[in-house]
Every structure is written in structure tokens, then in C-alpha cells.
């Protein structure tokens, strides 16, 4: 049986249903990301697992133990909050020691454990400082250490990186991931940032309007979006109407088809293309954006606008607006998606 098992989870606030009959299972040591736009219920779902929001239906099991009605403090769950939630009146060391103190462990043991996790999150020398003397990244590492020191069965991270600036965020997400791997810690991470989710996760649960719309590895979610919402959320997918799909690619479907912008080629003269590549279509460039390593073109084939991503190989190859080009499509990468 799975390490974490949630079945038929339902949560309502008054008449408003946040999520209904959610099911999932997580294996030990997995890094799961709950990904979705704000207001999709991902944070509420996370808090329900911790027992901070009581659920209105369903069951939660961890290691085959029914925790549905267990108090948060008895669940063996560690949590890190977006606001850090460090205790302002305590030093770094006291903050980290808090959970062990509540367990009434010996002070010698507490001290050695605190030292161990301080080492783990690389905060040596900051033990006697107060939270308001630390930077955002350091505070979040204290919060992480405080959650880790009690050796939780699962670690919940509620948008822990959202309040940090880009550079620190990058570093901290690597650090979180490497610590998680080192401890083989089952982790559930909440974010609205799809890049963060792709980089960190073993599996992503993509949520929308209180439902998990797709579960899978980052690769699966990205390359095989289950529906239009996933395609729209995960990348800059082109969604092409069914009649256009028939006309352009001879694909018969009632649904729209999704085409990844980077799977589209520009035909180069003299080069041989395989049988999975479509016949060339003439398109006219409407505009472009230089994103850095990638140039994003908006190309019109008749009345159908497509986003095409090309690698920024050299500035001479930048194509100007109004220029026409021949687009080739990888037919294996064109897939129908349900609404």
C-alpha cells in the first residue's frame, strides 16, 4: 500500500466547495508538487493534510494509519509556510528546538539535533540571531530546519519560495530538493510556478478549480497535456480548432489539437525530413519577442495564429515581421486535447 493515501477528500467553506472527492496516493520519498493557479484549492488541500483545515469528507492515511481525525500535532507532519511563521521572540536555535522541546526531550539531545539540522541547512553561526536579523532566504531555511528537526513523516511546503527574489529562489529550491533526496523525505510542495514544479518534482498534481486535472511526471504533464487547461497552463501550447487541424494536418478529431511551439520547424532548403514531418505550410511572421535563448515568433497561416519558438542561434537569423516562411510540423507531437 502507498505511503500516503488520500481518498474522496472533500472540503467546503459554507456553500462554497473548495474541492470534492479528491483521490491520490504518494510513495515514500516522492517529491510531489501541487501545481495550479491561485484559488484552485491547492493550499487548502495541503492544510487539510496537515489537519489545519478540517475536511468535510474522505479519509487520509499515512503508513496505513488513519489520520483523518487526528490532531495536527499528532500527525507527524512538518510544514513550511510562505510567511515563514518563525517565532519572532525566539532565536534561530530556539525556533528550531521548539518542536523537540514540546516532546520533552533532554536538552543535550535537543542541542545535538539542532546543531545537526543547522548544519544541514547551512546556517552555522546564526544560532543566536533573531528572525528579524535574517534575510528572507535565511528565514525560510530556519523554517525548513524547524520542520525537519522533528523528523516528520511527510514535509509540506506551502509556497515557501514565493516571497523570495529570483536568485535566492533558484538556490533554495536546489537546496530543498537535495535535502529531500538526502533524507528520502516524502514531500508535498505547493506552488503556482510551473517552472518550479517542473524542476523540483518527481510527480506533479496539476489542480484547477478544486480538481486534480492531471497527475504525472513533469515530462508527461508537459508533453501530454490531458486537456486544454493543462496545455494552457504548462507552456505556450498552440491550441488549434478541429476544422483547422483537419485542413492543415489532416487530423480528424472533435477536439482542439495542441502543438508545442518548440516542436515546429522552419524548413531549411536541402535538408531531408522524415515521414513524421508534415508537408510545409506557408506562414507570415507577425511579430517576435526575444526571450534570451529562445526567439518567440507569432506566425499566421491564413487566419490561424501560431506561436513558434526557435533557438536564438545567431542574430543574423532573426526573421523580420512580414517575412514568409515554410513551417513543418512533427505529426507525432500534435495531439487532440479535450476541453
Amino acid at each position, binding site marked *: 500500500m502507498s505511503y500516503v493515501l488520500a481518498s474522496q477528500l472533500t472540503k467546503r467553506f459554507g456553500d462554497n466547495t473548495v474541492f470534492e472527492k479528491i483521490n491520490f496516493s504518494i510513495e515514500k520519498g516522492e517529491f510531489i508538487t501541487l501545481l495550479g493557479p491561485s484559488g484552485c484549492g491547492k493550499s487548502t488541500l495541503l492544510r487539510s493534510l496537515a489537519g489545519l483545515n478540517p475536511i468535510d469528507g474522505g479519509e487520509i492515511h499515512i503508513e496505513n494509519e488513519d489520520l483523518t481525525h487526528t490532531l495536527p500535532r499528532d500527525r507527524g507532519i512538518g510544514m513550511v509556510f510562505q510567511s515563514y*511563521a518563525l*517565532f519572532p*521572540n525566539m532565536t534561530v536555535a530556539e525556533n528550531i528546538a521548539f518542536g523537540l522541546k514540546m516532546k520533552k526531550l533532554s536538552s543535550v539531545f535537543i542541542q545535538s539535533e539542532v546543531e545537526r539540522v543547522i548544519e544541514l541547512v547551512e546556517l552555522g553561526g546564526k544560532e543566536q540571531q533573531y528572525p528579524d536579523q535574517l534575510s528572507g532566504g535565511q528565514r525560510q531555511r530556519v523554517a525548513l530546519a524547524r520542520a525537519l528537526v522533528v523528523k516528520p513523516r511527510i514535509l509540506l511546503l506551502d509556497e515557501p519560495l514565493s516571497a523570495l527574489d529570483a536568485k535566492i529562489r533558484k538556490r533554495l529550491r536546489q537546496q530543498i530538493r537535495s535535502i529531500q533526496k538526502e533524507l528520502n523525505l516524502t514531500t508535498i510542495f505547493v506552488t503556482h510556478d510551473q517552472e518550479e514544479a517542473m524542476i523540483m518534482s518527481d510527480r506533479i498534481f496539476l489542480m484547477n478549480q478544486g480538481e486534480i486535472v492531471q497527475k504525472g511526471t513533469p515530462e508527461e504533464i508537459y508533453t501530454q497535456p490531458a486537456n486544454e487547461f493543462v496545455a494552457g497552463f504548462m507552456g505556450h501550447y498552440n491550441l488549434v480548432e478541429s476544422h483547422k487541424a483537419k485542413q492543415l494536418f489532416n487530423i480528424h478529431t472533435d477536439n482542439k489539437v495542441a502543438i508545442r511551439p518548440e516542436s515546429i520547424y522552419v524548413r531549411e532548403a536541402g535538408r531531408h525530413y522524415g515521414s513524421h514531418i508534415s508537408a510545409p505550410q506557408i506562414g507570415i511572421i507577425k511579430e517576435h519577442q526575444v526571450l534570451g535563448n529562445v526567439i518567440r515568433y507569432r506566425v499566421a497561416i491564413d487566419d490561424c495564429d501560431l506561436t513558434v519558438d526557435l533557438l536564438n542561434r545567431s542574430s543574423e537569423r532573426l526573421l523580420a515581421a512580414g517575412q514568409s516562411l515554410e513551417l513543418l510540423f512533427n505529426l507525432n507531437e500534435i495531439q487532440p486535447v479535450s476541453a
Partner: protein
Amino acid sequence: MSAVNLSYHKFIVYLITGLLLIPILAMLLYSISSSWGATILPDGLTLNWYWKLLTDTRFLAAFGRSLLISTAALALSVALILPAIFVVFYYFPKLDRLMNLLIMLPFAVPPVVSSVGLLQLYSDSAVPLIGTPWILLGTYFTIALPFMYRTLATGLSTIHLHDLMDAAHLLGASTTKAFLMIILPNLKKGLMTSVFLCFSFLLGEFVFSNMLVGARFETLQIYLYNMRQTSGHFTSALVMTYLLFIFLLTWLASRLGFNQSGVKS
């Protein structure tokens, strides 16, 4: 530019402080002069008035009563408001608006009006409250309530109350423990400030104690009122002693406040 600006600001601050200090300094001088009648400067300096005051058992008793009633009222306020405000903020945040309305009431009604109202209300109650210190205790609670509630509310809104409580719960603390170990220490500074503010305020309270209790429970301000016919030097010494006490208290409060903020700079 900033140097000029700074000295200008300093000048204004010193000027205003100086102006405000003039009556106090005049009173101080008056309280230590033996007699000061038709001359520009006092005839001689003496600490006699202070000696007279501090050996007057009636003064000491009144002072003691004032201290007692203010301390008791504040203890009652802390004991009632602290849990109440926590419950409001943690469990029923919507009630904060109602509380804000409630705490404005003591300001909306002038003390003279509300003391008349209280007299009417309690004059024929089964438990005789009028004329006893007990009614003062209750009234002083309502005076302290707005100050204390507002300061604590500000303190609570500057911390992430719910996240802190959630974090503490997950780490194994009960709600009571979390409140005592995490929320309370963060409110301490505001609490101390409001307690000392209310204390000096209550110590100087006259209208309610005069109207509701009067001479039967002679507090400091009533004693001062009753002594108004005696020598002005004596009452000056009395007011100076009172001011000095408040000043000491404020100084002590700010010292305590800084020491307990917990941040070493």
C-alpha cells in the same frame, strides 16, 4: 541642507519642550520656596512642604488607595482583555469590528454624563455599589479597555497570528501553550506600554472617583481637591510628587519595554 534642517527641527523640539516645561518648573520652584509673595524671587528655599506632605498619613493613605484601585483595575483589564482579544482575532475575526465600536463608547460619553448614568443605574441595585471602591474598579476597567484593546490589536495585526499558531500546533504545542510561549511574548511590549499609560491615566482620574465614591474612599486626586484650601506651596509639593512618580514609572516602563523586546542590536 540636512544639517540645517536638523538644527531647525531640534530648535523647534527644544522650544516646545521648554514652553511645556515652564509651568512645571514654576511649580517646582514654588513647592520648594518657603514663602513667595510680593517679591520677584522667593524669600527662601525649603524642603519643608515635602516633609510635611510625606509625613502626612492621610496623604500616604490616599496614595495607597489610588495605587491599589489602579493596579486592581489594570489587573482585571489584563485578565479579561488579553484572552478576549485573542479569541476575537483567532476564532472570530469578524467580531473585531464590533469590538472597535464597543471600545469607542467610553470616549463617546463624557465622564460627567456617564457617572450620572452609573449613579442612576446602580443607586437602587440590590448590591450596594455606589460609594464603594467596587464601582470604581468596574469604571476604570472601561477606561482602560480602549487603550489596551487598541495597542494589543495593533500588536496582533503585525504578526502572522494564524501561521504562527499553525506552526506551533504542528510542532506539538497546545493552543494554550502556543499562546503563552509565542503570542504573549510578542504582545508583551505593547501590553506593558498600555498598562503603564493606563496606570498614569487612572492615577490622575478625578471625575469618576469624586462622583461615584467621593470622600468615603479618598484617592490621590480627591485628597488634592480637598487640600485646595491649604497652602499653595503644599499642593504644589503634592502635584510635584505625583508628577515625579508618573515620570519614574514611565521611565521604568520604557526601560522594561526595551529590555524585553529581546533584540540585541
